[in-house]
């Protein structure tokens, strides 16, 4: 029963990642693309969890933390770049 549900869920996540890739390619502005990339990162975390249920191993569960951190840092640096034009700036006050 769990395997069937996991297959259905992986299919749904794959469809949602395809839809988000359409938004990444088509998106009218740069923040649209960043929003879609952030959502793709979050969906990848869910797919990793589902694959680790499907393969019946807990070896992949650290990848969840790693992808979460990378997705958040990527979105934060992209937004700072869009707002100020730089990623690392010298003034301390943001």
């Amino acid at each position, binding site marked *: *029963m*769990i395997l069937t549900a996991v297959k259905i869920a992986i299919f749904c996540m794959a469809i949602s990642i395809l839809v988000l890739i359409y938004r990444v390619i088509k998106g009218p502005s740069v*923040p649209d693309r960043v*929003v879609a990339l*952030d959502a793709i990162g979050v*969906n990848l975390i869910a797919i990793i969890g589902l694959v*680790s249920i499907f393969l019946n191993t*807990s070896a992949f569960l650290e990848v969840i933390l790693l992808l979460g951190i990378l997705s*958040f840092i990527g979105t934060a640096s992209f937004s700072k770049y869009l707002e100020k034009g730089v990623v690392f700036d010298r003034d301390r006050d943001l």
Partner: protein
Amino acid sequence: MTVTEIFNIIIVIFILIGAFLSLVAAFGVIRLPDVYTRNHAASKAATLGVMSILAGVFLFFYVKDGYFNASVILGIVFIFVTSPVSGHLISRAAYNSGVKMTDMSVHDDLKDKGKMQQK
């Protein structure tokens, strides 16, 4: 009905709810008119869906192995904290870099202030 079967039903419900919410979030991202509403869909519905799926994963490994897998809990808490923050950051960057709202929106609180206060 044993305890394992009850846990299996709960895991399946969590996973299916999460998959449905992620699908809804993706279609919201593709259907909504401008970047702010798309950000609203992507940073709330997708977060709840992924948290639900990770709760299912946590319960699965708790039933299978019988020990508390702390890294999944840490992942749930981390996503719960950081996803609204990144949504807010990218929405603020979109407003400050001059992305237009859609024509259907009726109110703009920040119109008189010009550029948002950067302190």
